[in-house]
């Protein structure tokens, strides 16, 4: 039998092994951290979506958080 680790690696396998409710709770923790760090609920434009309208103004700031700026960026 193929193990999840063989197929998707340790990190994903650990996520796979959680029960649905455990995954839900882990996700809630991540949301708390995200909001604690000032994360916003504004969505990123989904350019592949059939609903996407390039002319529609976005309320979202470029870096996802008001007052947040890119201080360093890799060249890639």
């Amino acid at each position, binding site marked *: 039998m193929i193990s*999840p680790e063989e197929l998707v690696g340790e990190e994903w396998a650990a996520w796979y092994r959680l029960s649905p409710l455990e*995954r839900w709770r882990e996700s809630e923790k*991540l949301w708390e951290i995200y909001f604690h760090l000032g994360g*916003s*609920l504004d969505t990123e434009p989904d350019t592949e979506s*059939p609903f996407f309208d390039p002319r529609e103004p976005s309320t979202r700031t470029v870096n996802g958080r008001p007052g947040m700026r890119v201080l360093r960026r890799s060249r890639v």
Partner: protein
Amino acid sequence: MGGQACVFYGAAEFSRDTDLAILASSENLARLSNALRDLKAQVIAVPPFEAKYLRKGHAVHFSCHHPEALGMRVDVMTKMRGVDAFSKLWTRRTTISSYDTTIELMSLPDLVQAKKTQRDKDWPMLRRLVEVNYFANREKPTREQIRFWFLELRTPELLVELAVSQGRTPAQLIRRRPLLKNVGTANESLLTKTLRAEEEREREADREYWRPLKKELEKLRHSRASQSKR
């Protein structure tokens, strides 16, 4: 039915919007309007929030202005390509409770159908959703689960493992999913190729499904733009 449902079933998505599949009856739309009013939600973009657009397959998009949900996007849909009618989705739903709130999630097989879109990001997620279900249940699977995996697994190695464990691939499933005829050969590179072709066909079917709807959206945008100029 969106990102949080994917998290529950095993994929990992950080989705900031809330996707709702609803029954587009007038009574239900009135209830939803009240809930959206509580969230101080306003329709953004097109189409307007009307049953006729939802029944055609459009999604209606809202942005919330309530301080506790500021900027949250809510997308409402009632009809999705390849997905059963709402009444069937409702009977198959998963219900969970979180902080005294009941949340109704689309069933995994229905979510998998809904995710067969033209977007790149949906396909790796779809693969993970079925993989997680397979790993969690392969020791003692039900007939429904075996059928679901034969029809929806997108991982060549697991499709081969499934075929070996079952001894044969049922003929009626091969008719539904022709690439299954390659599963018995254990030729994973051929399977990979046919899975890719299957994905491309689904993505094209989704683009085709959306072509007239996108035209209609474009018309609505034009008419809205010309009204706002007046």
